[in-house]
Structures are given as C-alpha cells and as structure tokens.
C-alpha cells in the first residue's frame, strides 16, 4: 500500500541544519564578521537599510550574513524585524539642504555654488577586474581635504529663485502623511504615499520602470538636476522640551530630476520635478525613483496616462520585493488540491471534445 509522504517536521529540521552548513561554507575559512560586512560590503548594507526601511547598519549586516548575501532575503529579514517595533514618535522633516556632503553632482550646470564634488564613485572607473584585489591590499588612503564638503544649496532651490521650476508647498494645514507601514495602500494614492512606496521599492523593478520612461513609455524629458550624498541631522521635538534636539545623523542619497513641462491652462511653461531619496549610498535607486515619481504625476499634470510607469496601480502594487518575491515563490507550495480539480476539468473537456 502506498503511503503519502509524511514527516514535514523532520524535513524542515534537516533543511535548517543543511542551510546553516551551506551558509557557513568551508569551516577552514574564517567566518565573516558583521564589522567586515558593514565596512567592506557597504553598498549592500545600504540597499538593505533602504528597502528594509530601517536605518541600522548592524542589523542590515546581520541580515546579509544570515541571508548569505541575498539582498532581497536580507531586506525581508529586516522588514519582519521592524514590523512590530513600537512607534515612539516622529522626527522633524530632514533638511537635506544642510547635509554634510561627500558627493554632489549636477548634470544641468557646469558650475554652481558649492561646485561639483565627485566624491567616491564607480562612475569614472574603468570596469576592468582589478586583480590586485586577489591579495589582501595594503591600506588605501585618500587625500584628507577631499573627504567631506560643507553644506551647499540645492540646485532646484537655485532654479526656484527664477520661478522656473515648480514649487512644492506643503498642502494647507500641513497634514501628517499617511504612514504606509501602518496603513494599507489605497488607490488613488497621493504623492506622499507614492514616494513612501517607491522608497521601499525593489531597486531592480524601479530601475526597469525608470528606464522604460526613457524609451518612449512616458515622455518626461528628465535632467539630473542634482544628486547629493552625505549625512543629514535627525531632529526630534521631545514633548517635555518643545524644541528640536538632534538625535543623530543618517547617511542619504537624494536625487532631484528636473523635467520639461510645456505648461497648462493654469501653469506657465516651467520645469517639473521628480524626487528620489534613499538611505546610505544608493544612487541608481534614487535616480530611478525620481524618474518613476515624475512619471506617476501624469494625471496631476494633465498628461495622458498610456504607459506602465505612469499607472499607479501597476507600479505601486508590484514594486515591493517582499510581496513580489513571496507570491512568485509561493508557487513552490503544494497545490495538489487545485491541480486535482483542474486535472478533472481537463479530462472532462477532453471527453466531451
């Protein structure tokens, strides 16, 4: 007599033990420390913090170690950890015009107040494998005065002086934005909600959506007004004090795209804006986010909604790596019952055909 496969309990336990062994690899090789991951895989840590919506390099490094370097899995771990943390309060809005900058470039002006600061970037490296890294390198030292620049005005604020770029005043009464980590996404979603969604969105997805806007699927004519990477102070106003107190700094990458706009019945021709922001150093992500943010403003700006990147239900419902990865991979779960039902149906159809 055939007996169906049993023993899920033991199978899971064995699988966990195998996973631990595979994660660790050859025990003769020294184990990775969190400090190594934080220092030497910094961009992976930054991505996990950004999409994990939690600014904590130690936990992001731990998640990467636990996930054997799988970014999406590490993001999942961080999100599940943060989901039930109590919400103790909200910070004041970050003032990115006062950031301590490590890098700042603009593609719209050759020179501008504060200048172009190239900083650490892969942009102008030649992508040749550097075989010198095969061996542990001696310490690399950069010139001291190139480390960080003082605060400098944002490019869009310079354009704003001429009234050539749209202004984004807070809405009347400056209402609290909906908190997407506490409330479900509803449609139509206002811009503050869309930006929260995009900030947590999968980088690969946003990159492809942003890219599609450059290839005829939504014409937004973008210019990289400014990309800045540096550290911004985080302030809270404790109830018992009533004035802002700095509680720390976060590293950020901010991108302001400026886009051509021919004007409408109520607005003169001017430049519109798309906005991107990420924790740490995530330029690809913040630029793609800015492109998609601008594309999603189509309805507000009276543009025809024709392309996926302009459709909020399409973009916002499919941007989250946890949702996408979970649902795609749930196909691994047993579907015996549904498949049995379909099997019967196909047989029935073939009989009657």
């Amino acid at each position, binding site marked *: *007599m*055939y007996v*169906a496969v*049993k*023993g*899920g*309990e033991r*199978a*899971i336990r064995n699988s966990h033990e195998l996973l631990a062994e595979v994660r660790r690899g050859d025990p003769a090789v020294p184990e990775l420390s969190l400090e190594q991951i934080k220092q030497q895989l910094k961009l992976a840590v930054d991505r996990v913090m950004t999409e994990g919506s939690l600014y904590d390099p130690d936990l992001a490094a731990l998640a990467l170690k636990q996930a054997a370097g799988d970014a999406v899995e590490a993001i*999942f771990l961080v*999100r*599940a950890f*943060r*989901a*039930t943390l*109590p919400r103790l309060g909200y910070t004041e809005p970050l003032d990115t015009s006062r950031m301590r900058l490590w890098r700042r470039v603009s593609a719209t002006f050759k020179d501008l107040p504060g200048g172009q600061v190239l900083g650490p970037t892969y942009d102008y490296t030649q992508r040749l494998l550097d075989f010198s890294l095969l061996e542990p390198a001696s310490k690399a030292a950069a010139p001291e005065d190139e480390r960080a620049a003082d605060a400098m005005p944002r490019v869009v604020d310079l354009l704003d002086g001429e009234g050539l770029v749209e202004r984004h005043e807070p809405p009347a009464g400056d209402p609290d934005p909906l908190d997407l*980590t*506490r*409330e*479900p*996404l*509803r*449609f*139509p979603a206002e811009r503050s909600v869309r930006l929260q969604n995009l900030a947590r969105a999968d980088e690969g997805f946003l990159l492809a959506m942003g890219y599609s806007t450059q290839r005829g699927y939504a014409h937004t004519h973008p210019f990289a007004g400014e990309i800045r990477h540096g550290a911004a102070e985080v302030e809270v106003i404790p109830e018992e004090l009533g004035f802002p107190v700095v509680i720390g700094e976060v590293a950020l990458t901010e991108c302001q795209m400026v886009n051509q706009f021919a004007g409408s019945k109520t607005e003169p021709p001017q430049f519109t804006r798309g906005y991107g922001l990420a924790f740490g150093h995530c330029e690809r992500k913040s630029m793609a986010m800015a492109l998609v943010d601008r594309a999603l403003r189509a309805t507000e700006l009276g543009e025809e909604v024709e392309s996926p990147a302009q459709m909020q*239900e399409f973009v916002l*419902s499919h941007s989250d790596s*946890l*949702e996408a*990865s*979970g*649902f*795609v*991979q*749930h196909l691994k*779960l*047993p*579907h*015996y*019952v*549904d498949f*049995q*039902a*379909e*099997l*019967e*149906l196909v047989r*029935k*159809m073939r009989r*009657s055909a």
Partner: protein
Amino acid sequence: MRDERFNFAFLDERSKRMIRRALLKAIAIPGYQVPFGSREMPLPYGWGTGGIQVTASVIGPNDVLKVIDQGADDTVNAVNIRRFFQRTTGVAVTERAPEATLIQTRHRIPETPLHERQIIVYQVPVPEPLQRLEPREAETRRMHGLAEYGLMHVKLYEDIARYGHIATTYDYPVMVNGRYLTAPSPIPKFDNPKMNMNPALQLFGAGREKRIYAIPPYTRVESLAFEDHPFEVQRWDAACALCGSRESFLDEVVTDDRGGRLFMCSDTDYCAGRQAAKAAAA
C-alpha cells in the same frame, strides 16, 4: 515551549487590536473586503501571512489550534505555521478537527462539519474575485459598491458558451449574504457548499493584498450559477484507497512510471479517523 522573547503570537498588542477592529468591521459586513495595515511577518507573502495575522489576533492561551494545507496537517507549510504558533504562543495543537477551537487552512475546508465553538481562518492569495477580469482596484471597488457583477456573469456565461459548462474548479466565486461577490480562497468548488449556513465563524486574511473579510456563522453563501446551469461539485469514480470514502475530496497519487494511479482523501484527519473506526470495528 513558548519563546518568551517574542510577544504572545508575535504581533505587538497594538497591531493585534488594529486587526481585530478590521475583523469586527468584516463580520458586520459579510463578504466585504476591509483594508488593513498588514504587517511584514517572518514568513513570506503568499505563504499564509494574512491567515497568520488573523490567527495571531484572535488566538488566546486556551485555544487549541489546527493548521492544514491542502487538507493535510503534515505538509511542510502547515508544519511550519503550526511551529510558528507553538513557538510564539505555546498553545495546544491538534490534528483532530472537532477538537480544535481555531483552524487555519490553506485550500480546503475539513470534511468533518465544523461547529459553533470554532473559528476557521482561510489564507487568501487574491481576495478580489474580480481581479482577473479587472485588475484596477479603483474599478473593482466601485463595482462592489454598486453590486455591479455583470462582468463575472458574462465570464461564466462565456465558459458555458465555449465549453458547455463553467470551467472554474477552485476559487469559485460566491455571493455572501446576497450582497457581496466574494472569493472563497482557492478551495476546490467541492468545498463551496460547506461555507453556506456554516455554524463556525469564517475569517479570511490576505496579507500581501492587505484585506480582511468574514462570513459570520449561519450566513447564506451561494455559488454563482444559472437556472439552466446549476452549480455542481466534482465527483470521483474512485474511492479513497486508504479509508474507502466516496464522499471526500480525493487527491490523485502517481504510484509508478507505468500510469499507475490511486486516490486518497486530501483531508488526512478525516481519513485517519475513518481508518481507525474501521480497525476498531474489525
């Protein structure tokens, strides 16, 4: 047994309260999808996070929990979810459907009839029955508001015109309390009649889609049909090879590479109970 480093049932009390408020609204409006602030759970979306959040919000220390997937208690995902609740609540667990106060399920309703002192929690991948016909939520919400379900009737009619019968075998749409078109979750349509006037409270959680809905005890649940094409459930020519049942939903098992097949109950508890009764009688 219980891991004290986590809050009881993992979720913090505020999140549970938020979910219970959504559940109350859902029970008050049978079949209506209530949006809720779904949390990221330590299991992936699509693997039961909605059901897990509902269970976590209603479970108490005296509950007796049963978890099934495809009707079985010992499939790996059911085992994993049961272990999660054992670890975070320490509650008693059972495989016996009548003994459970709380049953979390994926894709089946137990064959043994439920009773009044039970809650059944369904894991729901796609709560919107109209989604395959109209992907825009803003549109489907309007259709529900106006009870405008012509789109679904046309789809079923087209099935009949094309195949001579309705070609939907699972997640077969139901009308709850004569008002809301509702997805029963991907249970086989075989199980649909069990939802009607069921004495147990039926709760539905969709974590990824962030929706909760409910069917209160003794609520009318009708599977969509036409007068000349009444609703029918699957029937098998075979009986269960283990317990001999001809009434239960049967899974087909491939026994060799020469076309050998046999059928057995998808509900392992029901099947084991019948086998034990037969052994006792013999």
